């Protein structure tokens, strides 16, 4: 059996609780008549766009339905008891009848919760196994994710590509699934990879390898951010996942495999910027393939200009932002580990001109 079934929604009917999507739908209507608000947010867990997030969504509707029913019944009884049995002035001073307990009643409200618990446990186990314990298909693509304070490194080991902060993956057609498997670890402290529309969190932990998979069907940009406190700039360690059609993805890979632009004929400013870059401490932390810059402490800059954002998604990748970032990263992201290099205005201008050419 394919681990990525064509029928994308697991059927809870087989657990004997509800058939197909009737209950989830009913619950979403009752609970979230303002469902539009949830769908509008780019990071809503209730707007799933890949199989792991969708199976969680379906499970969550079941759990929400059951808990809502419990709340209405128990809360309603409580409210009724408080109103019905309130003390009234016309009451005599006599105490009410003292009742010390009832084995039958107490047994019933022990057994019924046990039945509910078993049901929820079985439905939950089904989703755990369907996400964590299914074999990886041969068509899967592998990406290595390395968490850093406070940015993401992505490596495509079989494709020879290293990039940062913007993860590109192919979309997955349910008929011919091409899920992306993420193999994750951290270079420093704990992080957590959370793109709510694609999947739940998986922690990114040093000295430990974790895996997860995602398979968005629709091309698009899926947002998220680090979800495990990792230090000063945990808040601006954002995640951007670009799902692309297989053709676009291949083109992107092809472009990323090129070594960095070296020929700046007709652009002496960029050429000077390259020289300044290569003679400064920039190269200790940053790599630009094809040059002497081979540092791995900071993001790979080989194709920096092809990215939409800088500083792990915190700012748009404009020359102005880039220049300010190089001048003083802490003015934009206090606590960032990149030091201010104290460059003069001329050097800042030429380095910015150089980096904007690295497409």
């Amino acid at each position, binding site marked *: 059996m394919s681990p990525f079934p064509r029928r994308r929604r697991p059927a809870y009917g087989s657990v004997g609780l509800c058939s197909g999507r009737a209950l989830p739908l009913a619950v979403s209507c009752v609970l979230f008549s303002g469902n539009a608000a949830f769908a509008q947010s780019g990071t809503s867990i209730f707007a799933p766009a890949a199989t792991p997030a969708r199976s969680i969504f379906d*499970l969550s509707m079941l*759990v929400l339905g059951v808990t809502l029913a419990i709340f209405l019944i128990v*809360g309603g009884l409580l409210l009724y008891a408080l109103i019905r049995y309130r003390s009234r002035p016309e009451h005599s001073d006599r105490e009410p009848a003292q009742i010390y307990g009832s084995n039958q*009643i107490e047994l019933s409200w022990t057994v019924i*919760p046990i039945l509910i618990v078993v049901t929820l446990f079985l439905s939950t186990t089904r989703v755990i196994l369907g996400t964590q314990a299914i074999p990886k298909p041969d068509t899967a693509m592998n990406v290595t994710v390395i968490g850093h304070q406070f940015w993401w490194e992505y490596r495509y080991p079989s494709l020879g590509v290293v990039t940062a902060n913007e993860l590109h993956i192919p979309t997955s057609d349910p008929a011919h699934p091409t899920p992306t498997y993420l193999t994750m670890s951290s270079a420093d402290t704990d992080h957590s990879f959370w793109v709510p529309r694609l999947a739940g969190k998986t*922690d990114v932990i040093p000295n430990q390898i974790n895996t997860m998979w995602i398979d968005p069907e629709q091309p698009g940009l899926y947002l998220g951010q680090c979800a495990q406190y990792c230090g*000063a*700039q945990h808040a601006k360690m954002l995640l951007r996942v670009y799902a692309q059609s297989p053709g676009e993805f291949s083109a992107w890979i092809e472009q990323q495999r090129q070594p960095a632009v070296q020929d700046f004929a007709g652009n002496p400013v960029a050429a000077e910027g390259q020289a300044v870059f290569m003679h400064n401490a920039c190269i200790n932390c940053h790599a630009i393939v094809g040059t002497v810059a081979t540092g791995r402490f900071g993001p790979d800059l080989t194709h920096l200009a092809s990215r939409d954002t800088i500083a792990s998604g915190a700012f748009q990748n404009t020359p102005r932002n880039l220049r300010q970032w190089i001048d003083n990263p802490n003015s934009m992201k206090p606590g960032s580990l990149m030091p201010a290099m104290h460059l003069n205005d001329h050097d800042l201008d030429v380095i910015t001109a150089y980096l904007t050419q690295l497409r």
Partner: protein
Amino acid sequence: MSTTYAVEGIDGTPATQQSRPPLNVVFEWLTTVDHKKIGLMYITYALIFLVIGGVQAVLMRIQLAVSNNHFVSPQVFNRLFTMHGTTMIFFVAMPIVFGWGNYLVPLMIGARDMAFPRLNAFSFWISAFAGLLLYFSYVGASGLYAAGSAPDVGWFAYAPLTARVFSPGHSTDYWTLAVFLSGIGSIGTCLNFATTIISMRCKGMKMSKMPLLVWLYLVMSGLVFVTISPLTAAQIMLTMDRYLGSHFFDTQAGGSAVLWMHFFWIFGHPEVYVLILPSFAIINEVVPVFSRKAIFGYPTMVAASVGIGFISTSVWAHHMFSVGMGAAANTFFVFATMVISVPTGMKIFNWLATIWGGKVIFATPMLFCIGFLFQFLIAGLTGIMLGSAPFDWQLTNSYFVVAHFHYVIVGGILFAVFAAFYYWYPKVTGRMLSETLGKWHFWLFVIGFHLTFDFMHIPGILGMPRRIYTYEASRGWDGLNMIVGIGTVFQAVGILVFVYNMVHSYFKGKEAGPDPWDAWTLEWSTSSPPPDYNFAVLPAVKSRRPLWDLKHPEDPDSDYE
């Protein structure tokens, strides 16, 4: 109702008050080994820290009220949530439940003091010192960013962020030592509770005749022994990592970050029950008195409490569903977590059955209990959502989980503690708290609580992680965080009314007499406040409600138990 009981074995004479020089009074409090004074010191100490932790919460909510706010720097924000969490758990919630336990347990079991009065004083003072030590870090620690900085590693201080390479300076050491010392105080106090409850009950009070509050403090004490020990061990291991070159949690030298998580959460989850069991204890005493009925299903309540105690030690890794434990371990902890909702549900049903058929009096203590019942029900249900591991993969470490545990700790524990204040304040001071101010306090706090914590669930569902100092406007979290912030204002005003009520009523409150609520347990048989050593003649009891038996000799409980 009568004010004194001319019944053999029950002493209702008021304590004599002599006027003494103020310095003598201070000296007496500093050196006291009296369980009531120590209890009150615990409570006062916790209330001071409650205000400090509350101010930290308000500062954080101002920062988060709108997107891209610059009210505090990220470094300050990170210290605020670390100190807020550590303060509220170790220096507010624990001391306040210990304080009420210290005050009430000997009175309720007809004893003259705790079993080890001097250990009791030691436990209080070591805990008090721990709190001061934690806050001394603001001036004394050379921290990550500058001299004078509080810990900023989060209240669960995940490795390896606490390693010296990521947390240079001493702020983390202040955190470690404070938690370590407060743990010693907790173990001392609980040793005292357990010994007192087991060996100092009055004549006739078999285990099966103890008030439920006493039972719950016994279970809570057992949990403290089991859970504080790994936490203490982990603090020692962390300090060894930081200063003696060991590598327990040092991932760069082959240590395990996940090991710390296990150590912390095998403390951290039962800790929730360490705090909520005493809250159940308070509800168990207050709800029957204001429903005018005996507690429904006493043996079930005891069994459920003991059951919760045992099960709660095997659920800890539900805090770790996203760390990559694998399907088998995740499945086990889902099961254990969901099973604990059965005994918890039994308690809620039994409280419901206690109210059913009673004559409910809506005095302030009961109002807070009613708030507790609804809010704890909701907290339990969101707990089931989080217990469902895949759902948890989305919700953990988001604002949903922050809302969930504040529902437990504020909506559950704090509401129960407020009920305790309104219920036992007359016993402690001899004067009633103002009912009018009490109702203002209740309604302000209920409105504030629900504005803050109901709306806090939604940003979590919309993808907002906890512990972020700011966020982008485009995420759509703005309006929700503003509502959450506005709620804190209502809560803060509610607390001010409460503090004013306590001070004002101490001097101007109505005289309470020994038994203002027409209650049934032994503490109400003493004068208000109770005399030194509580009972001139040790009482003897025949049932769980000795004062019911006294007041209703024609129909005593002892005939039915």
